[in-house]
C-alpha cells in the first residue's frame, strides 16, 4: 500500500514537472551546451563548407586580432562601473523618499515606476530624439544658459555617446530597484528606530546605524542584479548608435550579436557570448560568497 503510494507519487511528480523540465532542457540547457561547443568551431549559419573544430582560435582572435571586441569589453565595464553605483544609490534615495509617511507618497511611487513599464526600445528611440542637436535636451540647456549653449549631437560624439546612454538607462530602470529597496526598508522593525531616537540619534545616525546594516541582504541583491543587467547592455546600443561613433558605444553583447548573427559567424559569436557568460558567472559567485553566512 505504502509502496504503491510512493510509486504513484513519483510518477505524478515526474509527469507534472515534465513539460517545464523538457522545455528548460530544450531551450536553455541545450543552447548553453551548444554555445559552449560552437565556441570551439568555425560554424556559420549558412555555410558551403562543413563545420570543423578550430580549438581556441575564436578566443585567440577575440583577444589578439579584434580591436572592436577589446573596445566593447572596455565600454561594457565602463558602463557597469558607472551604472551600478549610480542606479543603486539613486534607487535607495527614491525608496527613502517614498517610504516617508506623508500624503501622496503612493502616487509618487507610481510615477517613479512608470519608465520601468515602458519598453526599453521605445525609451531608446524617444531619448534619441531628445538628444538630437535641435532636440529637447539641447534647447533646455540653451534656455537655462541664456543662449550661451549651442546644440551638440550627444550621440554622434565619441566623448559623450556612452554617457548619454547611461543617463537614459538609469532613468528607465531605477524605479525597479526603488521598489526592491523599499521592500527591504519595510522589513526593518519600527522599534529599532524608536530605540535609536531614545538614544538621541539624529536622522543621519539612524540611517547609518539602523537602516544601512539592516539592508545588507537587499543591498547584495540590488548590486548583483544591476551588474548582470548592465553587463548585458544591448537594446539601447542597437536602437541608438549601432556601436558607433567609432566603436565608442559597442558592447560585449552587441558585438556578439553583430558577429554571430548579422555576419552569421555563429562560432565566433558563441565564443563572445561565452565570455559574457563567464563574467556573469563570476558575478553570481561573488553573490554566493557575500551571502554565504545566511544560507
Amino acid at each position, binding site marked *: 500500500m505504502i509502496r504503491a503510494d510512493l510509486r504513484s*507519487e*513519483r510518477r*505524478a*511528480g*515526474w509527469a*507534472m*514537472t515534465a*513539460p*517545464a*523540465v523538457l*522545455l*528548460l532542457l*530544450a*531551450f536553455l*540547457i541545450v*543552447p*548553453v551546451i*551548444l*554555445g559552449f561547443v560552437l565556441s570551439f568551431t568555425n*560554424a556559420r*549559419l549558412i555555410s558551403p563548407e562543413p563545420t570543423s573544430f578550430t580549438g581556441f582560435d575564436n578566443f585567440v582572435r577575440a583577444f589578439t586580432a579584434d580591436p572592436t571586441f577589446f573596445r566593447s569589453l572596455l565600454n561594457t565595464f565602463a558602463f557597469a562601473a558607472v551604472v551600478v553605483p549610480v542606479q543603486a544609490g539613486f534607487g535607495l534615495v527614491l525608496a527613502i*523618499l517614498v517610504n516617508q509617511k506623508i500624503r501622496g507618497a503612493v502616487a*509618487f511611487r507610481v*510615477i*517613479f515606476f*512608470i*519608465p520601468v*513599464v*515602458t*519598453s*526599453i*526600445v*521605445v525609451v531608446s*528611440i*524617444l*531619448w*534619441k*530624439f*531628445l538628444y538630437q542637436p535641435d532636440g*529637447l535636451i539641447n*534647447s533646455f540647456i540653451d*534656455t537655462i544658459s541664456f543662449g550661451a549653449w549651442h546644440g551638440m549631437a550627444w550621440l554622434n560624439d565619441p566623448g559623450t555617446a556612452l554617457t548619454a546612454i547611461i543617463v537614459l538607462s538609469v*532613468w528607465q530602470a531605477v524605479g*525597479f530597484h526603488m*521598489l*526592491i529597496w523599499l521592500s*527591504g526598508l519595510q522589513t526593518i522593525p519600527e522599534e529599532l528606530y524608536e530605540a535609536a531616537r531614545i538614544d538621541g540619534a539624529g536622522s543621519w545616525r539612524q540611517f547609518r546605524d539602523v537602516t544601512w546594516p539592516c539592508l545588507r541582504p537587499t543591498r547584495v*541583491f540590488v548590486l548583483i542584479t544591476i551588474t*548582470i543587467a548592465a553587463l548585458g547592455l*544591448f537594446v539601447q546600443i542597437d536602437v541608438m548608435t549601432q556601436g558607433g561613433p567609432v566603436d565608442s558605444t559597442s558592447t560585449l*553583447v552587441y558585438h556578439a*550579436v553583430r558577429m*554571430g*548573427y548579422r555576419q552569421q559567424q*555563429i562560432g565566433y559569436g*558563441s565564443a563572445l*557570448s561565452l565570455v*559574457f557568460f563567464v563574467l*556573469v558567472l563570476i558575478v*553570481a559567485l561573488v553573490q554566493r560568497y557575500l551571502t554565504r553566512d545566511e544560507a
Partner: protein
Amino acid sequence: MSRRWIYLAMTGLAVFFLFPLVFMFVSSLKPDGQILSDVGGWRAFLPVGDISFRNYAGVFERVPVGRFLLNSLLVTTVIVGAGLVINSMAGFAISRMRWTGRRVVLSVVIATLIVPFETIAVPMVYWVSQLPTLLFQNGRLVYDFGWLDTYEVQIIPFIANGFSVFLFAQYFSTIPAAIDEAARIDGAGWFTIYRKIAVPLSGPAFATVAILTFLPAWNQYLWPSMVVQDENLRPVMVGMQYFFQDTTAWGEIMAYTSMITLPVLVVFLAFQRAFVSSVAASGVKG
C-alpha cells in the same frame, strides 16, 4: 528633513521621470515642423497649435501596425497563459510532493536562473534553425526543418521559466500540508489536489507570475529581430525598425511609440498595487 523639502524633491523627480513621456504623447499629435519649433519652451509639453491624429493615420498607412499589435498580443497571451499552467504544475510537484528525482529537478530549475538570455541568443538561432517542424502545405502535412519565421519560435522557448517555477514552489509551500493529506485519504489524486486545492488558494502567486512574465514577453526585441524576417509575423517592438533609418518623420515615430506604450501603461495604472507587490516578490530570491 522638513515635509516641504520632501515634496519639493519628489515633485522635481516626478518631472524628471515624466517629461520624456509627456513630450512623446504630446508630440504624437503635432505635425513634424511644429514639434521642432515648439521644442524651445513650455509648448513642447502642451497639446496646443495644430493638434490632430494625422500622425496615427500616417503610421497605419506606412506599416501594418494592426498586424504587429495582434502578433504581440498572441505571442504574449500564449507565453503568459501556458507559462502559468506549466510552471505552476512544476512548482507544485517540487514543493508539495516527496519523490525521488525531486532534488535533481529542483537543481536544474535553480541552475537556469543564472543564465541570461543574451548568453544563449546566438547558439539558439543555430539550434532553432535545425529543429524539426510539421507544416501544412497545399493541404498536406509536410515534415521540414527550421523554426525561423514562425509563431512557435517566438513562443515555445519562453513558456517554461525557472524563476516562475521557483515563485510558485515558494508560494505553494505556505499552504498547510494537512490539506493534502486529508484529500489523499479521501482518494484524490495529485493532479486533483493541484487543480482543486492549490490553484484556487494561490491567486496572488498567479498574479505575480503573470505580471512578471507579461512585460518581457510584450517587450521582446532581440530574439524576434533575429528569427522573424516575415513582416506578417513581427511583434510591435521589431515593427518599429521601419522608423529607425528614417529619423525625420518624428511625429509618426512618436505616434507609433505612443500606441504601443499606452496599452501597457493603462494595464499598469489599473493594477499598480499588484505590479508593486510582484516586483517586491521578485526581490526575495536574494
